[in-house]
Every structure is written in structure tokens, then in C-alpha cells.
């Protein structure tokens, strides 16, 4: 399925009809009146970042890799074009999965220098997010716009539908971010957290149902007689552009939102704002949960103390 939001004007026509003009004016006025988070299409940011061991892979129009010495190496990138999401796993250094705006998943096994399409069986639609299963490095999840969550157990060589999209506010919602969170569901597996245009949701990796983030495991809701613990969710109605869980500390989550960078210490129940820079993508180091890097509208920023302090990362 192709993105139908783009329109083209026939080259031979230079006149605008009254209906077209009024329609365009109404659309423009409507867009101006909307909050920015609602105007952004789900998973619309073609910015992505991920740690590959101690180095960073950065996609923001071009693809580059930090060289470990303060510099950056420009990479040719996958032939299929714009990267919307990147995912790595500490158990597979050098392997990078990329979700493509033009559709499909591509994989590099050499730190981003060479790329191979791994889209066999996937619907032909934009891949809005990818993540690697925390406990199974050959298992990759991909969120497909207008479709659902897909799963590959062989590093992308074949794919199968795992789950339809979540139903939120009376409609199916595209996934804009994915993170495999290595915390037990109480159902023999771990969680997959997901961002949407309306906020956070999650599903156990047995794929029984999308559900809100709650304290404890999925079935603690049975103990309804207990007093409800305190909660501080992410800002309501904001698109989650990216979401990561620290491998060394799975309860630590970072989220990139239009309102900034947010962090949770308890797997998504209580969130606190760590930066008000409009955030497009975020990555956390596999063995140092305090080391976080984000792509913002103001540029690339880095924190080595869990988001308490940020410094600009210069790209030479």
C-alpha cells in the first residue's frame, strides 16, 4: 500500500479551480488551527538513532556512524531510501535493522556499511518502527503503517503478522515507536512497548491484547482491592516519535516527544521530563542506562547522567 497523502499537480494545468482553491485554503486553515502533535503524521519523522556497541548510527536525511574519535563516517545507506527507525541488539554487534519510509526492512551486518533487504512477506507500506527482541536477538518486530505489528524470528528473512494495530479512542492507531522491554509479563514472555499518535501502549509477546501500561505484571489488575499506585503518564495526545528501553536496566525507558525527552524509571508508569527540546529520536547505551543521545530540532544532544544534563554533540 502506498502513501496517498501526497498529491501531484498536472504539469499542463496552471489554473486552480475555485473548488481546489477553497479546499486548499480550508485545509491550510485547519492545519494552522491544530496542535502540532496532531498535524504530524504517525511515525512521520525520518530521523532515527541507535547505539551499535559504543558507536552511534545516525539517520537524519543522511546516514552516518560515529568513529569513536569524535568524528563521523558518512555511510552510503540502504538503496531503498529514507530510514524511519533503527534497531540494534548488544548480542549482535554490527547488526543494524532499519525500517524504511518507502516500505520494507533492511539489515546491515557490518555496522551500517552494507545493507540487504529483509522484507520477504511484509506488506508494501511504510515501516514506522522497528525493534529487536531483548531476549532473542534474531527476532525483529516491525510496525507497518495502516496494517499492524509484524514479527520475524530469523533476522528478517521471513515475516508473519503478530498483531493488529491497537484500538485507541475509537479507532485503530498506527504505531510510531517500538521497544522490546525485558520485563516479565507473567505470561511466559516479555513486553513490547509501543508509541502511537495518542501516547503509550504495550502488548505481551504472546500477543494476546494491547493494553495500557499499569504497575506490575499484566494480571496484577486482578488485585483490584489494593489502593492504586501513583501514576504520571506521558502528556496526553502527543505523538511518541521514538521509545527505547535500557538493556542493562529494562525498567528505564526514554521517549522522544514533541514536548521533549521523557524518562521513566518504573517501566512507564511514572514519567518525568528531561529536556524540552522537540525530540525526534532517542537512543540509550546498552550497558550504561545513563548514556542517552537524542536527535532534536536543535540538533544532536547527549546526556551521560540519565538526562539531568545535556550537551550538544558536534558533527564534524
Amino acid at each position, binding site marked *: 500500500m502506498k502513501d496517498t497523502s501526497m498529491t501531484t499537480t498536472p504539469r499542463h494545468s496552471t489554473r486552480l479551480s475555485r473548488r481546489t482553491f477553497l479546499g486548499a485554503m480550508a485545509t491550510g486553515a485547519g492545519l494552522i488551527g491544530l496542535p502540532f502533535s496532531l498535524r504530524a503524521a504517525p511515525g512521520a519523522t525520518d530521523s532515527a538513532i541507535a547505539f551499535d556497541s559504543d558507536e552511534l548510527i545516525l539517520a537524519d536525511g543522511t546516514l552516518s556512524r560515529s568513529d569513536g574519535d569524535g568524528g563521523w563516517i558518512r555511510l552510503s545507506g540502504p538503496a531503498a531510501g529514507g530510514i524511519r527507525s533503527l534497531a540494534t541488539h548488544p548480542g549482535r554487534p554490527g547488526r543494524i535493522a532499519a525500517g524504511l519510509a518507502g516500505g520494507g526492512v533492511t539489515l546491515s551486518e557490518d555496522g551500517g556499511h552494507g545493507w540487504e533487504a529483509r522484507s520477504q512477506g511484509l506488506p508494501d507500506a511504510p515501516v514506522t518502527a522497528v525493534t529487536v527482541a531483548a531476549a532473542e536477538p534474531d527476532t525483529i518486530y516491525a510496525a507497518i503503517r495502516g496494517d*499492524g505489528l509484524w514479527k520475524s524470528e530469523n533476522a528478517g528473512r521471513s515475516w508473519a503478522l503478530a498483531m493488529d494495530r491497537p484500538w485507541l479512542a475509537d479507532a485503530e492507531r498506527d504505531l510510531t515507536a517500538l521497544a522490546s522491554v525485558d520485563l516479565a509479563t507473567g*505470561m511466559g514472555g516479555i513486553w513490547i512497548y509501543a508509541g502511537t499518535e495518542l501516547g503509550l501502549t504495550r502488548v505481551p509477546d504472546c500477543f*494476546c491484547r494491547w493494553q495500557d501500561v499499569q504497575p506490575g505484571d499484566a*494480571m496484577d*489488575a486482578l488485585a483490584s482491592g489494593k489502593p492504586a499506585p501513583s501514576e504520571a503518564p506521558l502528556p496526553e495526545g502527543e505523538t511518541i516519535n521514538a521509545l527505547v528501553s535500557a538493556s542493562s536496566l529494562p525498567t528505564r525507558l526514554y521517549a522522544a516527544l514533541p514536548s521533549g525527552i521523557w524518562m521513566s524509571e518504573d517501566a512507564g508508569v511514572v514519567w518525568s521530563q528531561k529536556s524540552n527540546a522537540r525530540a525526534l529520536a532517542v537512543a540509550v547505551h546498552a550497558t550504561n542506562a545513563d548514556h542517552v543521545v537524542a536527535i532534536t530540532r536543535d540538533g544532536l544532544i547527549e546526556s551521560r547522567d540519565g538526562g539531568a544534563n545535556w550537551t550538544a554533540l558536534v558533527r564534524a
Partner: protein
Amino acid sequence: MRRKVILLSVVAVASLAAIASFAQVQGGNVRAADVTFLGQPVTAEQIVRGKEIYAENCASCHGAKLEGQPDWKRRLENGRMPAPPHDESGHTWHHSDQDLFAITKLGVGGVVPGYESDMLAFGDILSDEEIAAVLAFIKSTWPERQRDVQARITASDGDGS
């Protein structure tokens, strides 16, 4: 001749004893002795009864062969998910005995607050014993791997086996 008759009789008795102790349950894939529910052994009679109750109350949605509704991973027009399979291709075996009992008795919304489902709460339709029998039947159809995984989930959930 007499020795041969005695030998045959012994073999026949032994065979009957083996059949009795490893009762292969009609409709299930495993011996009743291999199935427990909430830590208690399940009898062949419970499984047979559970199969009957399943056919009367569950099969219309979850399928006569526990196969679930067609395309069960895709949402229905009303936003709800179709009835999933109860065989090994579904996710039922990822839930503990306690949770399966609660979901059947209270409905999914009774376990996950606010979750909307077409699944009825069977607490007003079936007795606790009948719900346990249905679940025993479903568990009897699972291959060994799924039963083992589900037994560990049940054990880690508190009151299970």
C-alpha cells in the same frame, strides 16, 4: 496349552491395566494423568465433560476444533478482536490456570480493566466446576511443550501446581 492360556490372560490383564491407568481421553491428545488444573490432577471424566460443555458454550466462537475465528489476528469492524484459537497456535497456553479461570468466569474485562471484548463472562452461565472442566479439556489438547510452558506460568502465578 494351560501355560499359554495363563500367559495370554496375564498379557490381557496387563494391557487393560495400562489402558485404565493411561486413559486416553476422547478428543484430547494426552493422558488425563498428564493434565492438572490449579495443581490438582484432572480425571478422564472431567475432560469428557469439559469437551461437551465446550461444544455447547464455546465452540460457536472459538471453533469446534479450537481453531478460533478466521483471521483472528485482525480486528473486527467494531474494534474488538475475534475469538482466538485455544489450540497451540493461539496464546491461551501463555496464561496461567488462575487467569484462564478468571477470564472465563469474569470475561476479559474482569482481568484487564476497561478492555472491551465480545467474550462473555460465564460466571452466570457455568458453575466453577464446569469452567474447570472446560479448561481441563482445552489443556488436554495441547502438545507437551505448550503444557510444560503453561505449567511453569501457572506455578509462577502463585496458587498453581
